[in-house]
């Protein structure tokens, strides 16, 4: 057996073992070669055995199937993935709304304060005694320049006599205003040595009905 001959027949040999169609002439040549070549005859036997084993393996593998629960798992995945864009949209809208609210809050916070005396709404505890009910923030700069600071910066509110006390649920407002000292005297506020013709700056606690309930002196005007 020459090497060339064997190489020539090697391809046919494998094709024959695999059951591929072959021309009758080619088949006869192959058989004739194998009669004289033991190596090729052995190879043919090995290839035939291999083909049989391939068939058996294919049959064995065909017995296995996909586990049926995989289909359900995949469907669950499919549904979950399909939900994601909807969820993204909702989260996007919510995120946008939150951002808009934050922007408005920031904008309102950064606006300059109005140039008027601050008026603060407070809820007042029930007993209206000569105790501090509320404190007002610092006066604006231009008012501070003209107002002399009082001796005691945190003077208490003093209830105006003969007025009804505030109810627990009643709203009250503290209003800063300039008053004639005479009006303070008339309201029963202890003015001490103050000039009765002069003016004073005071915080007036005004009830929900608009009537003054208590006064706190802030300073004496020039």
């Amino acid at each position, binding site marked *: 057996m020459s090497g060339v001959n064997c190489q020539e027949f090697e391809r046919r040999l*494998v094709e024959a073992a*695999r059951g591929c169609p072959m021309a009758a002439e080619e088949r006869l040549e192959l058989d004739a070669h194998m009669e004289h070549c033991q190596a090729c005859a052995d190879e043919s036997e*090995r290839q035939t055995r*291999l083909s049989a084993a391939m068939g058996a393996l*294919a049959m064995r*593998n065909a017995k296995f199937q996909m586990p049926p629960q995989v289909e359900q798992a995949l469907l669950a995945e499919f549904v979950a993935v399909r939900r994601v864009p909807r969820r993204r949209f909702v989260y996007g809208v919510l995120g946008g709304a939150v951002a808009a609210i934050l922007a408005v809050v920031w904008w309102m916070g950064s606006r300059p304060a109005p140039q008027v005396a601050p008026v603060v709404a407070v809820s007042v505890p029930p007993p209206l005694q000569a105790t501090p009910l509320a404190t007002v923030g610092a006066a604006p700069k231009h008012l501070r320049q003209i107002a002399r600071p009082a001796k005691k910066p945190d003077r208490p509110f003093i209830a105006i006599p003969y007025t009804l006390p505030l109810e627990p649920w009643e709203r009250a407002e503290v209003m800063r205003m300039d008053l004639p000292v005479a009006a303070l005297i008339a309201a029963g506020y202890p003015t001490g040595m103050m000039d009765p013709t002069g003016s004073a700056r005071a915080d007036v606690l005004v009830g929900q009905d608009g009537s003054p309930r208590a006064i706190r002196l802030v300073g004496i005007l020039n």
Partner: protein
Amino acid sequence: MSDLSTRDADLLQRFRTGDRDAFTLLYRAHQTALFRFAMHMTGDPVKAADVTQDVFVWLIHHPGDFNPARGSLGAFLVGVARKLLLRRHGEEQRWTVLDESSLVAPEAECEEDSDAVVLRGAIAALPENYREVVVWCDLEGKSYEEAAALIGCAMGTVRSRLHRARGLLARKLEKQVGRRREKCPV
């Protein structure tokens, strides 16, 4: 376009719009072939099921990646399975491989179809490109032309790879058979 391709294209269109039933039909139409391919390639039903499942999970996440103009959905999914198998094989390479002869159970050595058991191990041990042609041509019964289209190489390459792979397998099988005859002479 064949009826099968038309049906696949229709189902795929519905699947892309979120039709659950269309996905179920696509899965049922292609899972058997994919599982069988993965089973032949890995020789392990658990791994084959994992790979098949991964192919469909991939499809769920990439519904727009298939282009019907470039081929059938079946071939496309086989391509995805091949890539997943390759990746898995690469990951498995990091682990020590046991001698395959030790994986054959002693009681199976005298069984009638023990050649198939030996062959399964031998195929799993083949290099990837040889294994593919054996699976397509010998186990799946595809022609050289079909196998070449699926693998993406020339027909002559398929033929030569198959001949070399079969030579390797035939020798391994013979060695195993000789070993078995020594243990089980009857």
